[in-house]
């Protein structure tokens, strides 16, 4: 599966909010994106400048859902000028987009646990809708936990206990793995992925982690997005974003 060459301009066909998150939708008939892949997104207007000088570069955003009729949905959390601007976009506003990029998730073995933290739930929704699998999702609080309603009977943990298990999603994961060790697909904050990687190494189970790294290009051109692996630094955008936990250092 290759990406169309070059950046395209497209209009938002949908926008809605869900708890702390914003979901935007675009049409992209040119590509058939896979769960775990991502696009580089920028607003066609008001991308930087004025008092706030950034953003300048496009932002990497995971595919949350890609329907057969060519609609691609993204889940956004406002964490800075780029995501803020993307969250502001309204239906009909122009978006600059290139991709889909990255390796994406392979079809999981049956029963593979899908573990997501915060905005990291986005790529796992595509996995569950395509191939199924139990979802364990961790959030800061109940407001963020509304993201879980996108999933088929998820088990939720919140840091403040305002919904589901009071604690980390890794508590739920360890309980599951103690009962029945099996493969894990995960995406979320670095601390979460490190914990899962350590557990996977300890238990000798297969864990596929979708990483994040600051990116300038998304297609292997800048070498800016590297992560340390057993074979040295690797580019998250082309060698990932999904890495086998055992391969990471």
């Amino acid at each position, binding site marked *: 599966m290759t990406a169309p060459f070059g950046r395209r301009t497209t209009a938002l066909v949908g926008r809605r909010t869900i708890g702390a998150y914003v979901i935007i939708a675009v049409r992209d008939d040119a590509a058939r994106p896979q769960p775990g892949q991502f696009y580089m997104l920028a607003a066609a207007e008001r991308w930087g400048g004025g008092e706030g000088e950034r953003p300048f*570069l496009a932002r990497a955003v995971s595919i949350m859902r890609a329907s057969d009729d060519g609609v691609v949905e993204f889940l956004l959390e406002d964490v800075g000028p780029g995501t803020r601007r993307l969250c502001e976009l309204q239906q009909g506003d122009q978006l600059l987009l290139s991709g889909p990029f990255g390796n994406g998730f392979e079809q999981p073995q049956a029963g593979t646990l899908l573990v997501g933290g915060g905005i990291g739930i986005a790529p796992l929704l595509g996995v569950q809708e395509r191939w199924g699998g139990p979802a364990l999702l961790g959030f800061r609080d109940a407001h963020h936990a509304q993201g879980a309603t996108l999933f088929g009977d998820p088990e939720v943990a919140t840091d403040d206990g305002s919904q589901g298990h009071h604690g980390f999603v890794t508590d739920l994961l360890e309980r599951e793995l103690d009962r029945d060790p099996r493969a894990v697909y995960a995406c979320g904050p670095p601390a979460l992925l490190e914990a899962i990687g350590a557990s996977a190494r300890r238990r000798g189970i297969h864990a596929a982690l979708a990483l994040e790294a600051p990116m300038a290009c998304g297609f292997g*051109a800048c070498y800016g997005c590297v992560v340390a692996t057993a074979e040295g630094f690797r580019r998250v955008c082309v060698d990932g974003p999904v890495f086998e936990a055992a391969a990471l250092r």
Partner: protein
Amino acid sequence: MIDFCGIELRHRVINASGCFDVIAARRVFGEELYERFPFAAYVSKTITLKAREGNPPPRLWEAAAGMINSIGLPNRGLAAYLEGDLPALAELPVPLITNVMGSTAEEVGALVAALQDREQVVAIELNVSCPNVATGLDIGADPAGLEALLRAVRPLSRKPLVVKLTPNTADVAACAAGAEAGGADAVSLINTLRAFARSPDGSGPWLGGGSGGLSGPAIRTVALAQVSRVAARVSIPIVGMGGVASGRDAGDLIDAGATIVAIGTECFRDPAAGARIAAELELRFPQIAR
């Protein structure tokens, strides 16, 4: 056709070294990349004698109208380039220029000599922004030193030698003149401006490599100044680059004396930027675009 050091180019727009990896891009974009190849020639990232890991992350900082990179010239080394990359680039639809860097004349000489008998490589770009071990300054920052370097390596190859000048110098025109006197066939400029970023949380330097290089629109007018000064001083062709994001930017560099123009950072924002800029240049300057 454009003539650049005896190389025939379809138009005046190429990529800037280290800003486009054709091997990775072909995996990402497939056949379409070669069918619609955006550049009139392809310049490799900097190759060194031995493999380099590059700098620890973070390697990127987003600046006002630009970015800082502290990539650290990662590459698998000369041998892997010859055995791995050259074959992988066999079907490249445009001429291949290989960019190399060494910290001594001996190292640079070894790189130039090794490329001399590779037909696939039509020209060699020498990245002289390498810190001199003794002074800590770029080896290209001193005109006399640069001339001596060229005199040493010039005899080792019949291929055109393009010297990628460092902009971090008091007198870039004198450096260009030194390169010309030493036998360079062309100069290319500007490389990134030495720049620095601090963590938003105040915890110290942001970049894993400590300092980095500023690129993008922010440096465009500095590039135009340096290209203008160099053009007034040397008679060899100039590859102009620095913040080019439109046909107009490219046209300004050509008006200032550049023969061809290279696109770096803008490729990150749009993988096909090279093709767009070449088309805009043609609209603006039909007479000079080819």
